[in-house]
């Protein structure tokens, strides 16, 4: 509880300053509504916003799953052979440095223009892929070299080595990859929604666009607040996983 107090206090302070500033300076609400107006928008639009948040969250989770299976699986396969790693790594890096906005229109064409939600999942998975791939790969190679020698000495099979040495040693790296990837998956989903545009998906990004076009700034901020909460929740989930994992170490 004492750990939560300082950030709560600061947030409250900032919100209060914002509220007071809006009221005393008479800022027009289409430019910057006070937090109270955002809170009202959050309550008023709750059913719509919640459904949209759930849609975005679900797409991000699907993307995270796909990226985890592909990135983790590829890292596992590649960790078995040095030439394979050398062959794959530049491609993975190329995928990482390509801006998701730039490939979005292409993916939209490939997945079918009337399946924008699929495009969102593919694009979010694309940005979440690299941290998972690179985290798992780094982790699998992070085992103590003397422990590797010990497994050589006792003639461990490749499967024994993987299960009893490399995967446990890789766990912290995987979780760190997951932390980065989960944030990126949400960002990727939102960016992809923006690109696919005009109601093709019903996620939070669409709510942002829609409210922006009508100059309903409070609604925009409400959607933004939900995105923020989503990111924080994902981060907290990964932290909880790390806590569980640490108990086994």
């Amino acid at each position, binding site marked *: 509880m004492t750990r939560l107090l300082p950030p709560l206090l600061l947030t409250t302070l900032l919100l209060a300053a914002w509220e007071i500033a809006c009221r005393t300076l008479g800022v027009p609400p289409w430019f910057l509504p006070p937090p109270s107006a955002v809170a009202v928008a959050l309550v008023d639009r709750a059913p719509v916003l919640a459904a949209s948040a759930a849609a975005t969250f679900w797409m991000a989770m699907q993307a995270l799953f796909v990226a985890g299976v592909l990135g983790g699986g590829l890292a596992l396969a590649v960790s078995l052979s040095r030439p394979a790693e050398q062959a794959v790594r530049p491609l993975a890096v190329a995928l990482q440095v390509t801006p998701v906005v730039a490939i979005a229109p292409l993916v939209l064409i490939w997945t079918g223009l009337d399946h924008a939600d699929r495009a969102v999942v593919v694009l979010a998975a694309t940005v979440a892929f690299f941290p998972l791939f690179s985290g798992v790969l780094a982790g699998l190679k992070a085992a103590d070299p003397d422990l590797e020698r010990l497994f050589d000495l006792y*003639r461990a099979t490749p499967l024994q080595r993987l299960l009893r040495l490399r995967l446990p040693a890789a766990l912290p790296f995987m979780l760190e990859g997951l932390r980065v990837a989960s944030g990126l998956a949400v960002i990727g989903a939102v960016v992809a929604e923006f690109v696919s545009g005009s109601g093709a998906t019903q996620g939070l990004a669409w709510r942002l666009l829609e409210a922006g076009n009508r100059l309903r700034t409070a609604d925009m901020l409400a959607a933004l607040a939900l995105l923020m909460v989503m990111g924080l929740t994902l981060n907290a989930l990964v932290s909880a996983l790390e806590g569980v994992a640490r108990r086994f*170490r």
Partner: protein
Amino acid sequence: MAEPTAALSGVVVRYPGRPPLGPVDLSILPGEIVALVGASGAGKSTILRLLAGLEQPSEGRTACAAGAGRTGFVFQAPTLMPWADARTNVALPLELAGLAPAEARRRADEALRAVGLGDRLTAHPRQLSGGMAMRVSLARALVTEPDLLLLDEPFAALDSITRRGLIEDLHRLWAARTPRPAIVFVTHDVEEAVYLAGRAMVLDAATGRIATERASPGALPRPARWRMDEGYRSAVEDLARALADAMTAPSREVA
């Protein structure tokens, strides 16, 4: 003469950008304790890894009569799996060999009790002191009842009291086993070499060869008070001089 437990004959190891190690000839007899002393970078650890079959020579032959999985290795650091408790760490070699987990655990507990850690069976490595972690490592090396036990400066990072305790324990464990395992250990410490080993080999860093060999007097295991003995002191002096010679002598042979 009995067949050696492990032997290197005409072994040369070439490294990129460094003078080669060897040729080295040595044989380790069943049940003897041999110390390998020499400056850093002389190739002591490489010789241990060759004996363990963890490294292959560029030239020459290595032979090891120890049965499959019957070579124990203790590294410079405890080298324990941080996510596993002491018992799981010690049971690892047995489980890798396909022993049933319950039986492996039973024997691991036994090995941990033998090194004086019967009350730390479920402790994790981070809950153990350096000396205790080293004992776990020793228990893991002994759990397969090895014919050959290889130790790579296992006590170097410990304080002198802990180190002495471990050396006494190693002697005791070695003497308690029939047949006694052969032990080869690497050390910088001539006193440790004289006290613990039956003979010491001095490795010359400049030539990459075994410069000389000194037998330690007296039967093994030795009583602790032997350290006060005149014979012990002169043996230490003698080995220290041999080591100093090996470290200063110019390359005697042109390769």
